[in-house]
């Protein structure tokens, strides 16, 4: 398999799944692990886990896969392959701006906003299902909610102070 082929696959799967990381994994597994046998299942899962526990976009695991197969150039090109389609946003936003004042479009916007709120909550609930699995994680979650909403701490403190408490709890228990 060449680097060009890998980048082509990443471009294709990314577009097919709208950049949804977890949905892309089975496609990548099918083609890289079962199909061509260039990656092991463990390596693919490692790439996915690394992207989840590191900051930033979760689809950064394509950089990890690129690195495993082709070193730094592979990582850079795979990362670029999931970023470039983002530029489709410009014509979309431009066209939207032109039509904005039309009555039907303001109704459309209200529909979009309502659905966005629902989708954000749906995604939060799915994320909670995956990560709030132990009493310790619940304690950290509740402390951080209080820090963010009641105490209005800044982002870094909201992340670090409850995390540190979680770390101490897990050392004690």
């Amino acid at each position, binding site marked *: 398999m060449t680097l060009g082929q890998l980048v082509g696959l990443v471009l294709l799967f990314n577009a097919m799944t709208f950049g949804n990381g977890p949905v892309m994994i089975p496609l990548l597994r099918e083609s890289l692990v079962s199909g061509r046998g260039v990656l092991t299942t463990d390596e693919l899962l490692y790439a996915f886990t690394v992207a989840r526990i590191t900051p930033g976009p979760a689809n950064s695991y394509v*950089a990890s896969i690129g690195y495993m197969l082709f070193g730094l150039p592979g*990582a850079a090109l795979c990362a670029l392959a999931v970023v470039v389609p983002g530029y*489709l946003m410009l014509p979309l936003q431009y066209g939207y701006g032109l039509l904005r004042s039309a009555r039907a479009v303001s109704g459309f916007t209200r529909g979009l906003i309502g659905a966005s709120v629902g989708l954000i909550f749906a995604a939060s609930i799915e994320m909670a299902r995956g990560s709030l699995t132990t009493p310790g994680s619940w304690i950290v979650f509740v402390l951080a909610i209080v820090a963010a909403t009641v105490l209005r701490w800044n*982002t870094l403190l*909201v992340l670090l102070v409850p995390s540190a408490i979680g770390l101490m709890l897990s050392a004690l228990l």
Partner: protein
Amino acid sequence: MSLGRIFWIFFRAGLAFGGGLGILAVLEREVVTRRHIVTREEFLTTYALGRIVPTGTMTAVAVGIGHRLGGFGGTVAALLGLTLPAFVSTVGLTAAYRQLQDTRGFALLSVTLLPAALSLVVAAAVNLARSAIDRRPEMVLAVAALIASLLFHVNPAIILLASGLGGALLLGPPTSA
């Protein structure tokens, strides 16, 4: 706005844990709540358009907001800021694959940074919901979208388009509500 400033805002968002939602949470705090660069409605509309673009939503949102703040240079600054922390840490940890695979550190993240990151997500979701909550049609659509996504796993792009079309047919400008 200067490119350095745009880079800095998105770099902070790129440092967020919890994937796209974590980034959304930090961006909402930085550009809506604190700096008032975009309104809540504009932010949600950008998010909705970003979900329709066939790539990661936050990548598209970075292009959209970056362009509004600083033209084409703004998009590059926003994308660099957003992806740099992920790229460096992901590649670094991949290079250290064999050494790190069995350490306890990975397990600890599930009781530390990940739940803390989730709290930011929930706080941002509640904050963004305020713009929809006082209008009944938006509330109904929000609940319908939640159910369609969570229980029936309908593709988000389809949910957004259907909700938008429903709004276009049934709802007028926000002032009439």
